[in-house]
């Protein structure tokens, strides 16, 4: 008896989730993908432009990437501070979220938000709240890839 009641409840839940999925406003996947592709591409073009700029300033080709990344981070951080980036993020999604700009935004937005809890526990403690997973799994991935690289060389 209890079993049939539980099954009825499960059925009701399944029916409801179907109804909810049917009524839910659809995420415009194609639009989002296209905008992310174009805007992400533009961010990369900007990055390439910055590399040319730093080479022109006298950096060696392999050294120009670092100031380029720093400049993109700076731009994203300033736009976050000015309160513009969240609108850009809503418009372009992964286009500005996946490049280093998204990483910068996640750190700066947390730092701004939690500054009111002080510099130690607020900014210091929570700045990497959103970026933390990226750093942790970035490091783990780098370690695994490094290990494979070393193994392949050794063989």
């Amino acid at each position, binding site marked *: 008896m209890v079993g049939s009641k539980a099954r009825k409840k499960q059925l*009701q*839940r399944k029916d*409801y*989730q179907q*109804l*909810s999925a049917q*009524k*839910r*406003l*659809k*995420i*415009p996947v194609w639009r*989002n993908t296209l905008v992310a592709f174009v805007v992400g591409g533009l961010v990369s073009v900007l990055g390439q432009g910055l590399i040319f700029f730093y080479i022109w300033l006298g950096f060696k080709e392999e050294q120009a990437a670092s100031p380029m990344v720093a400049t993109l981070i700076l731009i994203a951080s300033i736009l*976050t*501070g000015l*309160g513009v*980036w*969240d609108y*850009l*993020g*809503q418009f*372009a*999604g*992964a286009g*500005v*979220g996946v490049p280093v700009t*998204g990483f910068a*935004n*996640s750190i*700066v*937005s*947390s730092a*701004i*938000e*939690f500054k*009111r809890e002080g510099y130690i526990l607020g900014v210091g403690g929570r700045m990497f*709240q*959103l970026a933390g997973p990226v750093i942790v799994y970035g490091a783990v991935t780098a370690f695994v890839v490094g290990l494979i690289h070393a193994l392949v060389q050794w063989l």
Partner: protein
Amino acid sequence: MKARKKVGLQSMVFSRPVAILSSAACVGPLEGAGPLQGSFDVVYPDLLIGAKSWEAAETTMIKEAVEIALGKGSLSTQSVDYLLAGDLLNQCIAANFAARDLGIPMLGLYGACSTMAESAGLGAVLIDGGFAQYTVAAASSHNATSERQYRYPTEYGGQRPPYSQHTVTAAGALLLSNGLHCQSPMPRITHFTVGKVCDLGIKDPFDMGSAMAPAAADTLLRHFADLALAADHYDLVVTGDLAYVGHAILKELLHQSNLDLGSRLNDCGLMIYDRHEQPVFAGGSGCGSSAAVLCGYLLDMLSSYTIKRLLLVGTGALLSPVTYQQGETIPCVAHAVAIEMCHDHLADEELR
């Protein structure tokens, strides 16, 4: 002894409908620029309201709503017996910190976004039970405090799905009394239906409309059944913050249960914003949604006799960041408060 003032399974009927002496709604800039502009008492130019943090801003907002409602009713804080208030934040800090400054005996409530209906209903219970002469019922929500507690830092540039909702920045307060001396008709709380917590397994914290719709349907159906009402009894039935998705689902659920309210059914989360012109996705959410629409627009409609009977169904999603990160589904609750433009029936009889 049988509960004299209880009807059906979950409803209370007040022997002397509790008068709403005055109300106040204080809202943020986006709400103040929406379709209901002109019905609010205060529209703040920005979200920080001159405070040093979002939380302090929300405290200022709910405190000001209470003070304005008291001012309209020409009452001081000392003459109010109890304050019933709540908000969305951990430990209800906005309401509790406002109560610290107001100095009114305080009962803190948490019903998520259903808090306005919960506080109005319980405030009326205290008065009709003879425990208070004046109570104030209030609720608030703030976009930035909710974003930071439930989602991401305010300036984080994540892309939100179109079915998500924009937390309303608003506070509302009602001054309630037995209104025995008032012969003129005024909005009175006649019934209060307390909802059960419902959960049909929605997990997405952005999809709160879907999560809350079954609770709203459950309480609505229970209210109509308990009081044996016809579908056209109320001129307007408004839910708190189901927004576009939840409202559509609620219509469907009521239709399946043969309660067709038609155009009498609306939602505060849809009313407070222009969904097509303002960046609010599916509509508004938060305690402030029902609080500001009730304390401003809806009570104006009652007072001007545009509508005579109103049912407010406050809808709350009882989730926390901990529960959804642990993979739990979202339990929801809805409470219904019936408000009618009427006299004190018993006063007439006593006079005779």
